[in-house]
């Protein structure tokens, strides 16, 4: 069940993604309206992070395309912000919390210029929004998991983008941080920002998101939460009736077969 929106801010069109020829996402096709908090939900290995990375241009798709604000990503990069998984970086790196948040300004200042006082005040502002301003000077290795996530969020905020893609922002954070983050996301959505979140907890998904993308290697359902997030759809995504799909993928990998004929 896929419900499209009339004026999409994000359009994912017939997207197929493969890792060394093995398709991990098959023909994903959905749209998102602006100002929503969308959750990408699905079981382990469903390709949730892969979908996010492909939208961000970090993994080239085998076929299909992604459009943001009606344009390819290259043309609208400064309106798009990305929050990678917390574990993807080395938290022993010799930088302070403020340094990390300032990285959010790097896209705006460009390759060679340095960040200035205005960037600094924006960064401090964003730290304040996530409740981390007392930690600005702290070295990042001294942070807890929840604090690390808040810093990543502040860095994304510093980009002043219109659409935010977040990879598992609630993974391994304490309940207080989870509530603080979701509160902040709602506030952002209230001002017209669009937020796409990879999430794996079904219970909270219903209350957190107003748009759901239910994924299990293929798109099971996409649309407003109350319409698509039904028992039946969840069963379909988590039911594990798709072992054939991964078996075909295995064969394609073994025989080095392309996912499209041409």
């Amino acid at each position: 069940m896929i419900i499209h929106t009339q004026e999409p801010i994000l359009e994912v069109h017939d997207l197929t993604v493969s890792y060394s020829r093995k398709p991990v996402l098959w023909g994903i096709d959905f749209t998102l309206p602006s100002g929503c908090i969308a959750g990408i939900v699905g079981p382990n290995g469903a390709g949730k992070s892969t979908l996010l990375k492909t939208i961000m241009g970090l993994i080239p798709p085998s076929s299909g395309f992604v459009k943001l604000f009606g344009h390819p990503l290259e043309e609208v990069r400064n309106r798009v912000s990305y929050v990678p998984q917390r574990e993807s970086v080395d938290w022993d790196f010799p930088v302070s919390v403020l340094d990390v948040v300032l990285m959010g300004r790097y896209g705006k200042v460009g390759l060679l210029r340095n960040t200035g006082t205005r960037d600094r005040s924006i960064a401090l502002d964003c730290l304040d929004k996530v409740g981390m301003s007392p930690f600005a000077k702290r070295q990042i290795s001294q942070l807890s998991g929840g604090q690390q996530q808040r810093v990543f969020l502040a860095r994304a905020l510093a980009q002043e983008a219109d659409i935010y893609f977040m990879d598992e922002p609630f993974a391994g954070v304490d309940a207080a941080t989870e509530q603080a983050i979701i509160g902040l996301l709602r506030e952002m959505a209230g001002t017209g920002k669009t937020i796409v979140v990879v999430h794996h907890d079904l219970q909270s998904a219903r209350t957190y998101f107003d748009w759901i993308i239910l994924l299990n290697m293929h798109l099971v359902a996409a649309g407003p939460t109350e319409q698509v997030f039904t028992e039946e759809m969840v069963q379909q995504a988590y039911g594990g009736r798709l072992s054939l799909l991964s078996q075909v993928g295995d064969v394609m990998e073994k025989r080095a077969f392309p996912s499209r004929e041409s």
Partner: protein
Amino acid sequence: MQHFIDFFSFADPNVRYVVLGNVLLSASAAMVGAFILLQKKALVGDAVSHSVLPGICAAFLFSGSKNTALMLVGAFITGWLALVTIDYIAAKSKLKKDAAIGLVLSVFFGAGMVMMTYIQQSGNAAQSGLDHFIFGKAATLIGTDLVIFSVLAAVLLIAVGLFFKAFALVAFDRPYAEALGYPVRKLDLLLTSLTVLAVVTGITAVGVVLMAAMLVTPAAAARYWTDNIRRMVAIAVAFGVFAGLAGAYISYTAPAMPTGPWMVVVSSVIAFLSFFFAPKKGIVPKLYTQRKNQRIIAEENTLKMFYHLGEQNSHFNGGRDLTELTRTREVNETLLKTTLRRLVSRQLLETKGHQWALTDAGYRKAARVVRLHRLWELYLTQYMDIAADHVHDDAETIEHIITPELERELEHQLGYPERDPHDTEIPKI
């Protein structure tokens, strides 16, 4: 002393050349090395320094003379080729990066050695001294070489300065850099080229084999002194410069001594000292902190003995002898004696013949430790639902680290209790 003055007056042009060459090469190597280290590519530096050898030999074979500029070009080409090969093998084959590095390093260096042996056997008179490129010979530096090195070092300095922010971003969070639209692949290629350049500047003075050390060691040492990337690069450069100067000075005072290897030895000593003595991160300061903690624990436990004995007959200031003390708690007698002596010198205990007794200050401290112990036991039973007979061991540790603020909070949460889970009184101070 005379050596020292002669050396540092730089009156001898040879000294000038060697010192300037060394400083330039070690500073630029350390600067690039910092980013190699942060990108976790330290081994790559080793591979590239070995891989410049075939380029040097090829340049010699091509020109028939030891033309420095040409050799640097040759070195740059093969060094760069080696790095590209490593990346290609790691990306396109089943081999992992470590295997790719090992493979490329040995193949390139092996090829270089074959070519060098061939040149040496060929009877070409110009070849003498070519083997200096393996371990380096700073004394062979001449004025024209220095011009080339200065240019290379300046290029490195400017490039790293310009792309500092970008290199740091890529090293910390590569996907994010890509998502921001940073040309990550081009930046990789740039850092690769800078690495090769840094190695190339060092081959005359330090040689190909040891150049990897000059790349990575100063940066690794610097990491121990700071958590700020800018300071880390600055410290690495300072360490590199010091090693360069020291290497030159040592071979000046003892002419039989080679400059390059001494530079490496000096920077290794710096790294060694950093690993052991850097504040906070070094091994010795860490051991010292541990020792200090052990001492605090021993002292507070000893004071507690007096308090517990005092509780038995409500006579807290009474004198106790060694046998009485050792009965309350299993303890090493030598440790107890030294701790008692320390407590006396800190005026927490006073001696009465062969006995010891709490002073007023000692009593307050002892009561506080016992109090924290019992408060924590109570907290564990009430808030964490741990059985009363399981809380003692945990409280034995926690009692030593609770700060006055935590103590107030603990008391507040527990509602200012009078008695602990074992129904003994919680002392008030």
